[in-house]
């Protein structure tokens, strides 16, 4: 009798867990009522001038691309700010997301990182590519993830993954000390990195109230609250100053 009770309890727990899982998956898949959050990131003031980096210690760096410039603050003529990560910081509690099967790519070209800031999901593969005619070492320096440091000669493939959310992990090449980049890791897929036009779009957000944060490697972070309801696409603007 007792054994039967125990079995019933086990079955009940199992059913609850699987159904719960199925329900959350169904909610994640339902995009009919979801909306996008779009917007712009701007830089207020005169952006600091980029300076030329001396790469003469390794002549092979020149073969890759044009002159290497500093990328501390990259702002467009109309005040658009590049390399800002915009993401949902709050409002997705209690939901879990599977990493996408498609890997993200971080390329080393002309002895600089392309892109300067790459954003991925936790446990998503980051395909590190060396397109230069020289050897790099790829050295992410996380606070909340596993630190590794691998040498990468030309053409040798290398994959990295990070298990936990971290915004953002600085990455450098010790061999070419001017090389600096960032890897932003999220536990959900609602993030974007601004390009030349400073624009961003967070797609398919389910209705709800969210905190949207914009992060820049040198200029810090800013947050705004936004409410998303079906069919409406709120527009946001973030303005950074030096």
């Amino acid at each position: 009798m007792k054994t039967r009770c125990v079995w019933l309890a086990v079955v009940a727990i199992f059913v609850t867990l699987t159904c719960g899982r199925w329900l959350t998956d169904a909610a994640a898949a339902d995009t009919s009522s979801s909306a996008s959050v779009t917007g712009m990131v701007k830089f207020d003031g005169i952006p600091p001038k980029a300076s030329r980096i001396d790469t003469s210690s390794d002549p092979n760096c020149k073969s890759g691309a044009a002159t290497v410039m500093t990328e501390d603050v990259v702002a467009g003529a109309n005040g658009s700010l590049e390399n800002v990560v915009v993401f949902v910081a709050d409002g997705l509690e209690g939901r879990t997301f599977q990493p996408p099967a498609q890997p993200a790519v971080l390329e080393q070209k002309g002895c600089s990182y392309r892109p300067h800031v790459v954003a991925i999901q936790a446990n998503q593969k980051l395909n590190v590519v060396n397109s230069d005619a020289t050897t790099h070492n790829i050295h992410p320096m996380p606070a909340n993830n596993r630190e590794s440091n691998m040498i990468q000669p030309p053409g040798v493939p290398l994959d990295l993954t990070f298990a936990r959310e971290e915004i953002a992990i600085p990455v450098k090449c010790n061999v070419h000390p001017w090389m600096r980049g960032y890897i932003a890791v999220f536990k959900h897929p609602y993030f974007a990195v601004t390009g030349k036009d400073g624009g961003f779009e967070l797609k398919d957000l389910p209705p709800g109230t969210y905190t949207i944060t914009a992060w820049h490697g040198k200029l810090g972070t800013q947050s705004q609250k936004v409410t998303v309801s079906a069919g409406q696409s709120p527009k946001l603007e973030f303005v950074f100053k030096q």
Partner: protein
Amino acid sequence: MRRMANKTNLTVAFILLFCGLTSHAQQSHIGHLVGSAKHGKALYQRYCIFCHGSQGDGNGDSAPYLDPKPRDFTKATFKCRSTPSGDLPLDSDLYDTITRGVHASGMPSWRPLLRQDRADLVAYIKTFSPRFQEEPPVAPIQIPSEPPTSPDSVKRGGQLFQSMNCGLCHGKEGRGNGPSAASLTDTRGYPIRPFDLTSGTRLKCGDSDAGIFRDLTTGLDGTPMPSFASALKPDQIWDLVHYVATLRAAAK
């Protein structure tokens, strides 16, 4: 009656398993030695606390006067390991470091302590980071038997020294004076010098050829020295070891 006995047995087994799991994290295993964190704590407070600090974060009273800085055990990042880059060290790796000391740093050799004491210290050091409880132990890297050195092997090693950009930090002639040398920092941001291979001094993680093979394969975590595991084949790493040996021999 029988069922009840079975149940009691099961409960006892679970309790034992649970105790086993929790206490395992408080132990170290080096060969036949089993270290206990409880004993290790008393030893740590007597011998290690002045540099590594009561919290194990490397901020002991003497730390401001030391260069390189004492290890921060809370990060569980260790230079001298026999495991891949980013992975936790084996208990025996920590035991070896305590025994050997770290050359060209404030860390002396603790060989005068009993073997059991050193094993106890390893067990206690592991309690400073939750990683030792969270992450399963990793298999060490394989060190295949060393092919004999030869002029050809040294020549290939020399070419690898150049193509792997070793010289940008260690210098063209291995003197630790490459163009990137001055920019190097450890992960805590403190300046760190690339090793002068011609200095004739002892290497940090042991001096044997197999030790250099291991360092090249695992990398020295927390420092700019990367792992060559995915880039080179074991034969090529031996070539590099043989080349480095010629730089070191020149100094002797």
